[in-house]
């Protein structure tokens, strides 16, 4: 029988948020790339919440954009509401979040894929990996077609052996009733890949016309729009926004849930997968936080041209009849019509400890992976891994070293390091508290941190890079100038300070010193700074933050210096941990499982103690001398 046989540089399996970034990056770097999707209608699908960004996830999107990825641009084109969260908190935790028009998001991304050079989008299910002597050679599809490749990126999301459950109902499908991928798991196992089984869930989608919004609190978007992409200005993307709505569960809701717990597949023990603790279903919330009288719910539009609305805060796997009963206890949802049921989904993913920091499998050369397949959760977490996996898959084809971002450079670095290094028993979600250098890894300065890297990789063109350099120069120049602008204690100055609720000056000061006062900022001092040149908002923001938090920033920079020293102590690939005397057995096992890249990474493995690290360093020194 004749089979189709094609040759590519990079094959990407799955066209979700990870796959799209991976394929676009590889193609843009000049590699002939093909991306497979089980359905052309599920490219960049958002099968759960209808938003992009949020706390720490917004940081990830900004970083993706700063490196030359697509997510930021795509959401800027398709958002229907935008909000900067935590505005009253410190700049490190300001987080941008946008409601997406789901269909528009998906179609816009598909359009981008289809119009990118060197990229082919193909509907087919990949069923088998072709591996020879520990090196990936390509993939096989359900029809038997063979796609030879130099490198492969797996981004199968929640599709591997997926099944969706609510109550007694079990559907052997991926999200939204889409076809599951039932064969690839076996091929992975055959190639020695260790699999985990995780679960997650989603709430019901309801008909807008059946909701009484009059009794809910309207949630507006921000007036000032901050784009996700550094290439956009506010005026480029400003639009009329669509509101979300706030309502609450109540005692009656909770009673119905408690009375029907035995019919939940999780509580009945039907579900084997491990679910995320941070994203509990409403059943979990009612059980674990029994003292809470109500839980808040956000009713969010799924798009501009659909009546479907998402019931944020109420994911569930209870039976259909219970779902109707419980949703209808909620204020404003008394007559609600469900369009899609809430469900839990179970799927295969890998133990990410099998990966290197480049997201390449340690034991299968040329095979990379990203996204929920790696045990993470969330669109943004997926996208950023896809981007890195795609970049590194392409670089491998081009004979270049992989790009690895560390914990001091980006949330992306924190995320990948956590996945690859630490034990992970639930879908991993990003959080700002996971970043030890949070003050440096702000969403506002993602371009300062990463655009030079994106340019070097080749995903940021010269035009964008020149604009970036100009911005950087403006910031540096202005900060320097402010240090030297002396302000006398004259009447105008004193009056301005008084009007801003700030103490008057006793003697002269500089503008820099004044900006440091908590109640003042760069903007509000403009009246006493006649020589100031007009600057863009984002430039002014950088100036303000850098001056105001200089002390804290310096402190973190010093910590980073220490951190780098340990990261730069690389552990040779050839190390045999069994030979290291005095290393405790537990440490040997853990080190063998993770195979850390540096002493710094080794120190983050749970079960490896500081004295193990000392012993390891001495052993390495000994090895170095013996050579």
């Amino acid at each position, binding site marked *: 029988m004749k089979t189709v046989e094609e040759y590519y540089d990079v094959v990407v399996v799955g066209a979700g948020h990870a796959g799209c970034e991976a394929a676009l990056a590889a193609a843009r770097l000049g590699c002939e790339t093909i991306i497979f999707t089980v359905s052309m209608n599920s490219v960049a699908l958002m099968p759960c919440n209808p938003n992009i960004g949020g706390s720490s996830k917004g940081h990830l999107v900004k970083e993706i954009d700063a490196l030359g990825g697509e997510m930021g641009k795509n959401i800027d084109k398709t958002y229907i509401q935008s909000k900067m969260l935590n505005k009253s908190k410190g700049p490190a935790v300001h987080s941008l979040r946008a409601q997406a028009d789901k269909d528009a998001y998906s179609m816009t991304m598909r359009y981008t894929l289809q119009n990118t050079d060197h990229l082919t989008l193909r509907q087919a299910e990949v069923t088998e990996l072709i591996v020879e002597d520990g090196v990936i050679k390509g993939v096989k599809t359900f029809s038997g077609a063979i796609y030879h490749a130099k490198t492969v990126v797996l981004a199968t999301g929640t599709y591997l052996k997926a099944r969706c459950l609510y109550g007694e109902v079990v559907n052997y499908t991926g999200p939204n009733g889409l076809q599951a991928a039932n064969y690839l798991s076996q091929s992975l196992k055959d190639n020695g890949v260790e699999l985990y089984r995780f679960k997650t869930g989603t709430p019901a989608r309801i008909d807008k016309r059946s909701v009484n919004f009059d009794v809910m609190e309207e949630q507006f978007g921000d007036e000032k729009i901050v784009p996700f992409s550094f290439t956009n200005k506010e005026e480029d993307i400003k639009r009329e926004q669509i509101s979300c709505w706030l309502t609450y569960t109540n005692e009656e809701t909770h009673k119905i849930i408690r009375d029907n717990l035995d019919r939940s597949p999780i509580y009945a023990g039907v579900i084997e997968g491990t679910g995320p603790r941070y994203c509990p279903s409403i059943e979990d919330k009612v059980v674990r936080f029994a003292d809470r009288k109500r839980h808040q719910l956000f009713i969010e539009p799924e798009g501009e041209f659909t009546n479907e609305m998402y019931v944020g805060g109420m994911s569930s796997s209870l039976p259909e009849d219970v779902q109707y009963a419980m949703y209808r206890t909620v204020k404003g949802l008394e007559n609600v019509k469900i369009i899609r049921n809430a469900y839990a989904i179970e799927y295969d993913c890998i133990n990410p400890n099998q990966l290197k920091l480049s997201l390449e499998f340690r034991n299968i050369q040329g095979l990379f992976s990203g996204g929920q397949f790696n045990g993470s959760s969330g669109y943004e977490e997926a996208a950023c891994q896809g981007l890195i996996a795609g970049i590194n898959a392409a670089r491998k084809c081009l004979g270049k070293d992989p790009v690895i971002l560390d914990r001091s450079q980006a949330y992306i670095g924190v995320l990948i390091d956590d996945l690859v290094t630490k034990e992970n028993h639930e879908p991993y979600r990003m959080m700002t508290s996971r970043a030890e250098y949070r003050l440096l890894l702000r969403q506002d300065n993602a371009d300062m941190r990463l655009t030079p890297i994106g340019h070097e990789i080749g995903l940021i063109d010269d035009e964008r890079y020149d604009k970036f350099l100009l911005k950087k120069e403006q910031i540096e120049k202005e900060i320097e100038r402010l240090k030297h602008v002396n302000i006398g204690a004259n009447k105008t100055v004193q009056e301005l300070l008084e009007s801003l609720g700030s103490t008057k000056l006793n003697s002269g000061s500089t503008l820099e010193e004044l900006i440091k006062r908590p109640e003042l900022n760069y903007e509000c001092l403009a009246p006493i700074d006649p020589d100031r040149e007009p600057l863009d908002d984002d430039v002014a923001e950088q100036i303000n933050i850098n001056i105001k938090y200089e002390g804290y920033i310096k402190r973190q920079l010093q910590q980073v210096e220490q951190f780098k020293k340990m990261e730069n102590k690389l552990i040779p690939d050839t190390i045999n941990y069994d030979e290291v005397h005095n290393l405790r057995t537990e440490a040997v096992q853990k080190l063998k499982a993770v195979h850390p890249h540096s002493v710094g990474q080794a120190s983050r493995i749970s079960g490896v103690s*500081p004295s193990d690290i000392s012993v390891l360093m001495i052993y390495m020194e000994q090895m170095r001398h013996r050579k």
Partner: protein
Amino acid sequence: MINEFDTIAAIATAVSNAGIGIIRISGSEAMEILVKIFEPYNKKADVYQLENHRIYYGNIKDGEEVVDECIVLIMKGPHSYTKEDVVEIDCHGGVTVVYKVLNLVLKNGARAAEPGEFTKRAFLNGRIDLSQAEAVMDLIDSKNEMARKNSMTQLKGGLSDKIKQLREEIIYQIAFIESALDDPEHYSLDGFPEKLLEEDKKWITIAKEMLDSYDNGRIIAEGIRTCIVGKPNAGKSSFLNALLGEERAIVTDIAGTTRDTLEESVTIDGITLNIVDTAGIRDTEDKVESIGVERAKKEIESADLILFLMDTSVQISEEDIEILQRIRDKKKIILLNKSDKATEESGFEQSALKEYISEETPVISISAKYGDGIDNFIMELKNMMFHGRIDVNQEVYITNARHKDALAKTYESLECVERSIEAGMPEDFFTIDLMNAYEKLGLIIGESVEEDLVNEIFSKFCTGK
């Protein structure tokens, strides 16, 4: 977090009241620290400009207060043991002063060195011969094990609980802040800073109390572990009372002791004895008593010094011989009690002891009842200390210094939180210092941070879609 490149300090000599004690500092900040605490004899001299590999005489000062006169040796890297900048401070004021200087060094920016850390640095910086690598690893391994055990055993129950409680309270507040930052539409921080300030002030008070108790030596049993043994009625209690009753003696209760044995800490002329009074050690059928006997045997095992009280008003008994055999290898002083009573009548033959004790072992006649001979005992004790004949458990001092360092840094961090709140800083800044405090407290009870915060957030706060 591993700090391989910061500045470390430790006491480099055996901790005893013998003459000189050396504090060694190594790392890039060694000179900066010296500048802050050392005033050379030639007051005009700039400490930064002091010459390499030379010895300088001057005062160690804590602010305006002179802590000790000392000699300072400066060895700039790479021409030093660790190849880093090394400063050695030789002080001569005995245990208390050496300890005080170390704490001063820590307060000014050094970190208390881990066991074997100087040697490790020397090795990693290429100073030590390759063949010694195994030995260095052994050293780190064994010393860490020892330090860990010490750290746990020296912490009297009460303190460990207090620290755990404090850590729990701190992590809860961090988790609350983080949950609110993570899910601001769910958890509000309105009015939170005021509440946190109240909590923080409470924590500061607790940290201060703990810190003070370290200074008073009430928490860790530093000093010479001393065990009084002897038959019942040999006069152990009277002797103890006589000792405690000395005008020179400073008696401290050791708080939170969980032992049933009587334990007293007494400092005489700068020598601290931690005295355990034991039950007899004869074999017995009585269940309760046999537990006491077992304990007594253990106390003897772990003691640095044994005081054997013998009743000279009666003959040497089998039980005495048994004790003598058991303490054969221990450092000891034999106290012949009841010297007020004539021994001729009792038939007590001192010469019979020779078989069981070496010539060096001091034998002193006392009358615990009338306080006679106590002076001789104290003189002999000092004599033994100064000739290094008693080994003091050095780890105790080192652990103590490390704990105190950690507590001081906890205290500092909590104060930073207070300042941040009062300055109206955004809430996310509080967690930086709160986390520091949490981490430092963990060092004392041997717990690291790992995934604590994430676990706390997920278990205590309800977030998510």
